[in-house]
């Protein structure tokens, strides 16, 4: 059960513009944003990070989704993993590419570029970190510095969101929960938290 209640959207007229945009993006307003909305400056900052990192054009949508989902799943953050896996206009990866992330080194569904991305996500999701020079050096085969900044920004932003939702045990909404239970069971996702 959530440790911090989300606010009711109808009680937040001053945030209507941001919340309307979030609804257009997701099809609903995730509970995480309705707890962040307790501090309007914090919600607006998160919205700015989303515009910069999720809706920016520096990397392909497939790269963005693989990084956000891979890091969240390796991080044990099932709320964000379900969100970033659920199919939508900006989440184009085939299900097979999501289901195999724990077999990234050997699964034939991944390209070498995707394997390098998942290696970075896996190493970044260890505590303490296991990121080495070689992880970024490998990614320079495909990405320039500006794209790497974007990829690292995505990981760092999801570290914020993963921690926020982990501490508050944010309730996962029905639509992404149903998708994750139907499609991600058996690949490391579970719905024990975020009820």
């Amino acid at each position: 059960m959530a440790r911090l209640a989300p606010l009711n959207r109808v009680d937040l007229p001053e945030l209507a513009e941001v919340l309307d945009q979030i609804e257009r993006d997701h099809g609903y307003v995730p509970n995480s944003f309705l707890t962040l909305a307790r501090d309007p400056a914090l919600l607006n900052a998160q919205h700015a990070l989303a515009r910069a990192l999720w809706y920016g054009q520096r990397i392909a949508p497939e790269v963005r989704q693989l990084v956000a989902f891979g890091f969240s799943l390796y991080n044990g953050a099932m709320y964000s993993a379900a969100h970033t896996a659920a199919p939508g206009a900006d989440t184009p990866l085939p299900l097979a590419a999501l289901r195999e992330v724990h077999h990234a080194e050997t699964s034939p569904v991944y390209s070498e570029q995707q394997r390098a991305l998942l290696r970075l996500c896996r190493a970044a999701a260890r505590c303490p970190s296991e990121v080495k020079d070689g992880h970024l050096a490998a990614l320079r085969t495909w990405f320039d510095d500006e794209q790497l900044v974007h990829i690292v920004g995505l990981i760092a932003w999801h570290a914020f969101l993963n921690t926020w939702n982990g501490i508050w045990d944010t309730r996962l909404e029905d639509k992404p929960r149903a998708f994750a239970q139907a499609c991600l069971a058996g690949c490391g996702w579970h719905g024990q938290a975020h009820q």
Partner: protein
Amino acid sequence: MPRIDPLPRSALPQYEDIFNGMVDSIGYVPNSFLTMARDPLLIKAAGALSDAAWYPKTVSEPVRRLVTFAFSQFSGVGYSAAHCACGAPELGLSMEKILAIHDYEASPVYDEAERAILRLCRHAARIPSEVTDADVDALKQHFDTPQLMFIVTLICYMAFLNKWNDIVGSKLEPVPDAWAREHLQPVGWRPAD
């Protein structure tokens, strides 16, 4: 060596408002933000996040420094741990508390509110998270909802910065580097290679 180079501050006059706030708060511009400045939308969003998550006076200065230092230390991120501990004693977080960070359950230097904070930081730094209802309930005995939310916001802000700095390999600036070399090695802090 950083894995992605920061830009020189002199090449970024458009972000002076953000940088001046940092100088006023901690005395220097962290290299982390000079690397983020490679992406204009990212540095502006990170500036907005700093405005929401670092500058408000929702909790006392010693609590702010305890939360941010402890979470970074428990996460194994020396860059941010040095940032958050450097200058903290002058703001009311004693060296005794900084040095007892890994013995918080037993050390007499902490009160119960601080122990509750440190338990949350420790459990939030685990992968996967080990935060429990009891961790949050314990904090509710000492802090009201806006304060508790701000403590969690500080932790998440550091999660963002920790991950960023750890991956890009931000070089610790001379002031916090010298301070940490002198003061933090007893808690396991080590200079970067």
